[in-house]
C-alpha cells in the first residue's frame, strides 16, 4: 500500500522539474517539452486522487488533459516551425520582436 502523499510528492517533483526547465532552458523546443512535463505531473495527481476517492471522473479529466496537450503540441510545434522560418533561430532570447 502506497500512501497518497507519495504520489503527490512525485507529481510535485515532476512539476518542479518542468518549471525549472521552463526557466533555465533557452531552446524553445525544450521549453515546450518542460510544459508537457508539468502537464504530466498534474495528470499523476489527478489519477492519484481518483484512486483515493474511487471517483472515475478524475481519470476522465486526465483524458481531457491529454487531448488538450495533443492539440497544444500540434499548434505549438507549428508555431515553432513558423518562427524558425522567419528568424532561423530556436533561441528564445533572440525571439524578442513580434514582427520583423
Amino acid at each position, binding site marked *: 500500500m502506497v500512501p497518497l502523499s507519495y504520489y503527490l510528492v512525485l507529481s510535485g517533483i515532476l512539476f518542479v522539474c518542468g518549471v525549472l526547465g521552463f526557466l533555465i532552458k533557452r531552446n524553445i523546443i525544450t521549453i515546450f517539452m518542460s510544459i508537457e*512535463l508539468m502537464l504530466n505531473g498534474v495528470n499523476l495527481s489527478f489519477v492519484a486522487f481518483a484512486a483515493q476517492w474511487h471517483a472515475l471522473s478524475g481519470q476522465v479529466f486526465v483524458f481531457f488533459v491529454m487531448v488538450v496537450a495533443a492539440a497544444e503540441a500540434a499548434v505549438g510545434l*507549428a508555431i515553432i516551425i513558423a518562427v*524558425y522560418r522567419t528568424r532561423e533561430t530556436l533561441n528564445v532570447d533572440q525571439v524578442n520582436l513580434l514582427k520583423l
Partner: protein
Amino acid sequence: MLHLILFLFFGAICVAGAVNLLVQSHPINSALSLIVVMASLAAEYLLLGAEFVAAVQVIVYAGAIMVLFLITIMLLNAGKEERTQGSRVATLIGVPGLTIGAVLVAWTLVGRLSTTRSVSIGALWGAPKDIARLLFRDFLLPFEVTSVLILIAIMGAVVLASRPEAIARRQYSGPRPQETRELVATGKDH
C-alpha cells in the same frame, strides 16, 4: 510491499528522466528522456489501477506527441543550446525559490500521511467500460467539444506550418526527377 517497491522503482526512473531532461543540452536527448518519464508514469498509473489512462498515456503521450516533437527537432535540425545572460539570471533566482517551494509542499504532504486504498494490479476498478460509460453519458458534451478542438488544432497546425506561396516562389535548382532518373541510369554521381 511489492507495491511500494514498484512505486519507488518507477518513481526513481521518472525523476531521473526529468532531471536528465534538464541537464542535457541537446534537445533530442531531452526528448528521449521525456519519453522515459512518460513510459514510467504509465507504469505508475497501472499501479494506481488506472489501466485505461496508462494505455492512453503510452499511445498518445509517448507515441503521438513525442513523435511530433522528435520530427520537429529533426526537421529544424536543432543543435546544442547556448547559455545566455537571461538563463543565468533565471537560474540564480528560480532554482533557490523553487527548491524552497517544493520542500515546503513536500513537507506539508508527507506530514499528513493518508493511505490510498490498496489496488492490486489484477483487480482494476478503472475498466475502460466504466470510463466509456462516464465519457459518453455524463461528459458527452465536453467530449464532443474536444473533438471540435482537435479539428481546429489540426487546421491551425496545417495553416501555420505551411506557406504555399513561399514554396511556389522558391526557385528549385536541384536536378529534376527526370534528370535524376537519367543520372541513376548512367551511374553518374552528381
